[in-house]
């Protein structure tokens, strides 16, 4: 037990160091890319107002935000503030970055959580059904669906959903997270769910495909193994056979995929939020990128890196819980 704790501690320590170097490298790269990008932050800040702004005023804006300092000075400035817990102030929102991200993250988290659970559960179920019925029509329909969705851009799926369910049928709102013109105190949970349906559906539809396909492959290989052959010989069949001999084996790739899909989930959310005008982190990312809002973009990049990192970490941990072999290798 004591040994176990030490091993775990060392493992976590290594992970922590990796996380720190990852965030450091990421912030440098992002900062570098932003300072090399052709977007002029002063111009982006002024936007369509360009014709009314004198060059003195441009200079005043640049001074106010310290935009004329060389990039490494600005980076050090930002990094030292960051180490003290201050993520800076967003140029676009003129609010602390932490506040903007916090507000946006709540919306995104709801969206991603729903989509993540749905795609995981449905994807696993689809994979099992397809493998159990290999070659028959349920398998064909599911694989056809998966290949189609896997080769379709997420935002296209979103647009189709939008046009069909919001514009033609009018069943769902065309966007946003709350009903138009209703006071926050009068917005019910039902309203929020109602607005969440289309974007979450889009996101989970896209997420199902890889999980289902991988599960299907894994289950097929399990089903063709010797021990399943032996089980069959003893008379076991159908879903009982799969539950008893297959489930634990196929859970492994499914869980890995599910937790490492955090990055794709995040990417998909950016697009889904754009299509459905859903006020999440994805929308803020696009705005920050196009608006040259370096503090906000850096904040979002670091937060999302942390998010993806935690996803992978959980996958690592679960691995060890599900598969005893992983614990013995000593490769922590």
């Amino acid at each position, binding site marked *: 037990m004591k040994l176990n704790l030490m091993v775990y501690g060392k493992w976590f320590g290594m992970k922590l160091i990796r996380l720190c170097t990852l965030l450091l490298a990421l912030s440098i790269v992002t900062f570098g890319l932003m300072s090399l990008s052709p977007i*002029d932050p002063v111009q982006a800040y002024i936007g369509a107002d*360009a014709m009314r*702004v004198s060059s003195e*005023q441009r200079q005043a*804006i640049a001074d106010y935000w310290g935009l004329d300092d060389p990039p490494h000075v600005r980076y050090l400035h930002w990094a030292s503030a960051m180490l003290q817990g201050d993520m800076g102030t967003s140029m676009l929102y*003129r609010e602390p970055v932490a506040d903007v991200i916090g507000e946006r993250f709540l919306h995104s988290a709801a969206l991603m959580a729903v989509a993540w659970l749905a795609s995981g559960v449905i994807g696993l179920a689809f994979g099992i059904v397809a493998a159990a019925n290999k070659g028959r029509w349920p398998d064909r329909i599911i694989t056809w669906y998966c290949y189609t969705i896997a080769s379709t851009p997420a935002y296209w799926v979103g*647009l*189709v959903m939008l046009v069909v369910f919001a514009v*033609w049928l009018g069943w769902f709102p065309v966007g946003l997270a709350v009903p138009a013109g209703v006071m926050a105190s009068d917005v019910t949970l039902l309203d929020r769910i109602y607005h969440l349906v289309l974007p979450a559906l889009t996101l989970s539809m896209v997420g199902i495909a890889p999980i289902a396909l991988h599960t299907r492959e894994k289950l097929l290989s399990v089903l063709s193994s010797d021990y399943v052959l032996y089980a069959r010989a003893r008379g076991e069949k159908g879903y009982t056979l799969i539950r008893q001999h297959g489930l634990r084996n196929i859970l492994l790739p499914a869980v890995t995929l599910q937790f490492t899909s955090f990055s794709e989930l995040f990417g998909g959310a950016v697009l889904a939020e754009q299509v459905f*005008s859903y006020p999440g982190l994805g929308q803020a990312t696009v705005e920050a990128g196009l608006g040259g809002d370096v503090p906000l973009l850096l904040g979002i990049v670091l937060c999302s890196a942390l998010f993806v990192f935690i996803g992978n970490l959980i996958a690592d941990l679960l691995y060890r819980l599900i598969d005893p072999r992983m614990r013995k290798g000593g490769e922590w």
Partner: protein
Amino acid sequence: MSNLSKQLVLILAMVIGMAVIAGCGSRTEPGQSASRNTDELILAIGSEPTDGFDPTTGWGRYGSPLFQSTLFKRDHEMNVVPDAAKDYRISEDGRQWTVELRDDVRFSDGEPLTAEDVVFSFETAASSGSTIDLSNLEDVRVLDDWTVQFTLKEPQSTFISILISTGIVPKHAYGPNYAQEPLGSGPYRLVQWDRGQQLIVEANPEYYGQQPYFRKLTFLFLSEDAALAAARAGQVDIAAIPAAYADQSVKSMRLAAVKTVDNRGIMFPYVPSGSMTEEGYPIGNDVTSDIAIRRAVNVAIDREALVDGILEGYGTPAYTVNDGLPWWNEETVISDGDAEEARRILTEGGWADADGDGIAEKDGLNASFTLLYPAGDVTRQSLALTVADMVRPVGIDIHVEGKSWDELRKLMHSNAVLFGWGSHDPLEMYYLYSSRYQGVDLFNAGYYSNPVVDQWMEKAMHATSEEVAWDYWRKAQWDGQTGLSFKGDAAWAWLVNIDHVYLINEQLDIGNQRIHPHGHGWPITDNIEEWRWLEP
């Protein structure tokens, strides 16, 4: 518009197109049209003012500031009329502006609006590092409770535009959160702002002016394609849409195209090549510095064809940067699309096609230059390519290239560039054509200079009344001898003014819209007090 959203637009258009072709026979457009006979409206007219509703950092430059009132405003004929102020006087030397306030204006919390608040607003704006240009303001102070005096560093007749577009904030209720929780003396007050989604406002009972008919407005922050979808789903009363969608008919909505000075035009380098900017970028172009070339291009372009072909008819030909505004000189209108006349101008200027390659030359120099446009702007790209096609038969070769703004900034002094401008402030003409703005930012990128034009513009800037100034601005365009327009130096070839297209609930009357500036969306709210339902 970003590449991504452009792709989205394209794809949405495709999907809608496919659906139309497929027939979608049952016509199951949702019946719930937005026309509720109530005093509420839902609008999707543009992007969110992300940095909030603080006039001292730029809110309300276009359209009504809604929550705040301004000292003066413009009526439909662009005349200055009082708003929160009664009157203003300008001193002999044009540097001192004395403004008298109304004494019955109250903020929505019941406190009176006094000279203190005005001084506070302008001082805050001057030090805020945002987009309000107060660099010419030396000092502003309180004379008594209802009188304010502005002192300028130099006379500036266009200072009135700043008084018209800067909302007054309350000194007693101004704090770090003001942009999120604005409080003012305008026709509406903020009820709720859901970040990234919507803005809900309701009529301010303390408002001293005409009470608006619509008691509650909800602004949805949707992209143009989402706004169109919302309009089709019957979920909004007004949607701002790109002109490319103007052929879409939407049930119980009508299409309104508002005239604008949102213009596009070609800036020519005005001086011969040979010099450099301080940063080392080349200045001047030997072809476009020849007036015959600039005039021939101006005459050869068929502006009506540009409007019909590229803007689907939603635009007007442009002849200056300020078409249709009170300081516009109507003599600048020319008859164009005339290849004969263009050839005559070239020949007269000494250009002839001696080697038979279809391109005129003069002293061994081909009549050939590069026209740049900001890459990714489809409208400007189409305009540039079409213009190149229009002038080729005349013997002028235009090579069209898209560049990023960063590259444009390096190349714009030595190459023609397709720019877009348009403002309700004649100061813009000064920025574009004054010798003092040669090579300053994007303004007079071509290094245009004409002492007579400069003189007229300085006179306009120093004029003590707007009407007098307008007359000088007109003379700068063409005074009978010279000017910056085609008849004079033809420093630019203005092409089109692009209409702003809106889908509007058939039942809704949005009053008289005056010519809109550059920027699609908020300007439509400028006269929001006049909006009402049409009588059935």
